[in-house]
């Protein structure tokens, strides 16, 4: 529960102002907690200038010995035989963390006929690769992948497990964490080590990127996190790196699953996928007609990027729902985000405002999208995009 140290409290009211739940207020110059309304979110604790607030957990429950848990695991993701970029990004980050913890980095590679990828993992920073190669792993199922990883982790006891916050990772890593009864932090954008207790500091965006929270997993192991693709930087492969490859035969009991994959379909890829793209060109209502969306595709191709959509463009049937950016779609943070004919509803903005450079093109100079843009162009996308495409082609000597 949330406790106020009345010796320290000056009744300044910072806590009252910061509380979203009206659970703490100042009465007779001291903070009072409405324990029924308090959700223990900790925001007031963090914001108290006097350090007068504390959250007390049930004591004595966390007396487990954490010291047998050592080493960092990176769960390698292999789609259609190719390692996902986020896997290589995680290996680079794990190398840094392992340096601070004085431990080693293990990659876990699951799939079928994927052993050749093990060397690639070593070149990118793995000291050890656990290869689980089995025909049942040729297609991804949450149950089999999750059961094998949970079984391995339960026996080998890594202190940290990191995986990509991809469709696959976000689906089966929660299974692993629940089986292991440990904490999992989703979609992290920052990882660090707190030296005094080896805690993994996991920073993640919430509220569509409007709030950053740093989270720890103090009493449970392993500490698990999924990490957003394209945030951390992979190392260049070092063909001189040596590492150990260990083959693991999964137990039969781990291979049963109740969800059958009937078919895996690759849709016409319009360049890189949204979460891994450096450049995104988003089409909104301003395109007016489906045929004009071709302009966004052309520009995206030219910049080596991919096309995104607003809710309006999806509803109009111009672009598929999986390209929708925003609150009920995907959250992205590319190097360059081009919002074309996008008015900038808050539901869209929360999904893209973390982008490095934001360019907006809109007929309406008052459109809210301009509040978050780096460079704004006022005009009709149907006029500006062809000009822009021509100019870029000229720059490129096309």
């Amino acid at each position, binding site marked *: 529960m949330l406790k106020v140290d009345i010796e320290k409290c000056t009744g300044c009211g910072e806590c009252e102002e910061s509380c979203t739940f009206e659970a703490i207020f100042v009465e007779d110059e001291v903070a009072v907690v409405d324990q029924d309304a308090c959700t223990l979110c900790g925001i007031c604790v963090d914001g108290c200038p006097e350090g007068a607030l504390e959250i007390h957990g049930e004591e004595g429950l966390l007396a487990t010995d954490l010291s047998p848990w050592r080493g960092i695991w990176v769960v390698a993701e292999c789609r259609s035989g190719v390692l996902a970029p986020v896997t290589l990004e995680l290996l680079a980050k794990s190398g840094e963390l392992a340096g601070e913890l004085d431990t080693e980095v293990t990659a876990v590679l699951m799939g079928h006929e994927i052993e050749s990828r093990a060397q690639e993992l070593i070149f990118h920073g793995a000291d050890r690769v656990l290869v689980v190669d089995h025909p049942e792993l040729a297609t991804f199922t949450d149950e089999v992948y999750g059961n094998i990883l949970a079984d391995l982790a339960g026996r080998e006891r890594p202190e940290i497990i990191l995986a990509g916050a991809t469709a696959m990772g976000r689906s089966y890593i*929660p299974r692993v964490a629940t089986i292991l009864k440990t904490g999992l932090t989703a979609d992290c954008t920052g990882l660090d080590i707190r030296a005094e207790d080896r805690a993994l500091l996991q920073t993640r965006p919430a509220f*569509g990127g409007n*709030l950053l929270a740093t989270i720890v997993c103090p009493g*449970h192991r392993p500490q698990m996190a999924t990490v957003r693709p394209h945030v951390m930087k992979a190392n260049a492969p070092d063909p001189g790196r040596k590492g150990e490859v260990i083959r693991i035969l999964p137990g039969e009991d781990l291979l049963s699953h109740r969800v*059958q994959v009937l078919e*895996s379909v690759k849709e016409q890829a319009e360049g890189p996928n949204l979460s891994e793209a450096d450049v995104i060109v988003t089409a909104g209502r301003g395109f007016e007609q489906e045929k004009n969306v071709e302009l966004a595709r052309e520009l995206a191709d030219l910049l080596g990027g991919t096309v995104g959509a607003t809710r309006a463009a999806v509803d109009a049937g111009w672009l598929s729902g999986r390209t929708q950016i925003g609150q009920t779609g995907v959250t992205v943070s590319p190097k360059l985000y081009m919002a074309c004919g996008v008015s900038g509803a808050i539901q869209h903005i929360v999904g893209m405002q973390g982008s490095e450079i934001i360019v907006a093109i809109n007929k309406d100079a008052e459109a809210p999208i*301009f509040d978050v843009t780096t*460079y704004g162009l006022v005009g009709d996308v149907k006029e500006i995009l062809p000009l822009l495409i021509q100019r870029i082609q000229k720059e490129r000597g096309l």
Partner: protein
Amino acid sequence: MNIVVCIKQVPDAKTVRFDTEKGTLVREGVEAVINPFDFHALEAGFQLKDTYGGEVTVLSMGPPQAENALKEALSLGADKGILLSDRAFAGADTLATTYTLAKAIEKLGPVDLVLCGKQAIDGDTAQVGPGLAVRLGLPYVTCVNALSVLDDGKTMHLRRINEDGYDMLELEMPALLTVLASLNTPRLPSLKGKMRARKAEIPVWGAQELGAEPGMVGLAGSATQVVSTSVPTFEARREMLEGSAEEQVEALISRFKEAGIL
């Protein structure tokens, strides 16, 4: 078909503001709404009920005011709403939340299908659905954007979206699904539904009613803790490029060159 839909009350994105100095959410004027994805989970439940009969029960864990979210679900067509609310549930991370929801679903008796939205827009974790399925021993599929039930009334065909395309999957109920917004178009409340919701009593189940172990719920049952929060600053860097369309494009080209994009 016995269907349970889990919903969460979240701050309305339209009314939320953030204090960059304090690194927190601004409280004033924030309205609470049903998590947008959860409307699609509710709609999926209603459509299945319309075809196959049965009952749609809606669960929400939250503070007492989450009752409003359950009433709204009733106005849309849910048969029953149950609020999981207890001081002991406060401070729950996804591990403690899935335990609490699982206890409630077990108390409800046999269930054919549990539906959740893909994720809540405040926490954005997408972990409760899969975690809850594991707790209940159910198979699950996340990110569903199309579903059909075969003639046997038990087998489902589902489309799960991923980065490269989609998978077509088959499973037999009982099961748990998390759904995307593109699955369906949620219905609006009917007048009759609104009347019924207004009069409805929402039962409140606490730790005792659930037979929950004190060490498994709320802060005590959570493995993770928030140590700090901050509001990222997006520097005021707005520059409106000026002139004719040609001139604006020219200016953008030079900015692209400075930034190394070209």
